[in-house]
């Protein structure tokens, strides 16, 4: 009987693979259950070093989260310098709210593993679970502020 209940409990308990999403600042505050739901919508993609992930001007349908490896971003918002993105960072969130086209070109610098979530699934998740949505959008706002300050600081240095 004890074994049956353990088995039944195991059936209700899913494997905790979804915790891998905790490494991303966007999802750090989500509960286990919210992470589980989000993980169901996530795809894992592997890129070889030098492989093109997406090109500037492509339609934006997928948001990538870097699980491992390094990604080089070229021409980010008209910038002439390349930007490097590493584990825990993401690609495409700002573009999602800006014209729905890729504003830069992303190339894997080393062998990389990325988590991909469809823009449609992400928006639908945010809308259907407002509490989780607020947490995600707060993180996006916070990251956006940091990005704006970084750009402002860069421009200041250039002017000096």
């Amino acid at each position: 009987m004890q074994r049956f209940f353990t088995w039944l409990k195991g059936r209700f308990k899913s494997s905790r693979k979804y915790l891998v999403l905790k490494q991303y600042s966007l999802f750090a505050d989500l509960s286990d259950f919210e992470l589980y739901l989000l993980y169901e919508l996530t795809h894992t993609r592997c890129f070889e070093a030098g492989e093109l992930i997406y090109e500037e001007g492509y339609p934006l349908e997928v948001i990538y989260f870097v699980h491992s490896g390094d990604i080089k971003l070229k021409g980010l918002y008209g910038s002439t310098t390349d930007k490097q993105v590493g584990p825990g960072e993401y690609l495409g969130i700002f573009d999602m709210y800006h014209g729905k086209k890729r504003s830069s070109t992303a190339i894997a610098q080393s062998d990389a593993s990325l988590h991909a979530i469809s823009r449609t699934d992400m928006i639908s998740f945010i809308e259907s679970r407002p509490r989780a949505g607020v947490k995600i959008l707060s993180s996006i706002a916070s990251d956006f502020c940091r990005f704006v300050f970084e750009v402002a600081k860069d421009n200041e240095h250039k002017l000096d």
Partner: protein
Amino acid sequence: MSINWTKLIFNFLLIIVLIAGLIFYRWVFSYMLAAIVFTYILDPTVTWLESKRLPRWFAVLILYLSIIGILVWFTSRLIPELIAQGNSLLTILGHEGAMSADYLIQIPFINSIFEYAGNLDAQIPGLGAATRFTEILDNAVEFIARLPKFLLDNYSSIISAVSFIGMVPLISFFLLKDKHKIRKSLLGLSSNRYFELAIILLGKIDSTVGTYLRAMLFEVIAVSIMASTALSIVGVSNPVLIGISAGVANIIPYFGPFFGGALAVLTVFFEGGAFLNMLYAALAMWLVQVIDNNIVYPVVVGTTINMHPLLVLLTVLAGGWYGGIFWMLVSVPLVYLIYSLVSVLYVNLKEYRII
């Protein structure tokens, strides 16, 4: 340029395996198709239950038990009545005595026309209106006489479909339970280059097929309830059966609503009802169509299928010629789905600079 023989041989073998798989599984394609339709209809409820912290398999189980409960209730309450109505309708339409011009002439409404034709013959010698009228009746009777035979012929296929109906929920159970895994596996097959495109196409299929099927199901239920109520108010016999038939037929654009109306009017006609009763039946069905076209369809189905009316008409006609009623039912959504996919594919292939 050197040829990668290993890759070439692997791809060749893969194609052979795929073709062999298609041949081996060809008998279950119809099962899969029906299960996919069933899955699309149930999926939002399963997803909702999952969002309430129920494991997906448990959510599907609860939904199945609820459906079985509703079916048991429906069977115990409505099926005996429906069978009785079906038998009565078949008797009215298929009785040998009823299927003769002589019997029809006894119907008051027909009799008045026949007498009028007889009077015309008396006034205009050589006109032969009564004889012509009897000939028309004979032809109509011959046509209508084929209807019950058609229904009876199809009953055997309906019985053989019971096994089909039994298998579909089972397949659908796995499709619903493992929806995310299946989706991930399908998208996992695409290369990185086509990954985003594959997501866009899958999303388009999901939204077009899912929305259309759920909207259609709602419309069938709404029209069935409205038609049954309207027909019972105007006193047509077998209102539930005619209402459900009209609801299902309503899926076929243009021809479906006509079928429902004709069935209601014919029932009154063969029961010997007065012309006024036929008019009431027709008006009731027309009213149902007005509500459906102006309220139910725009709200529920809306712009899920955005095709020009002429194209819809031609598609239904082509479907009918190609494969009868079944193809009349599926031709419009199928053509629309293919059209949407091709247009989405073309636009995105251009935007992703693949073509």
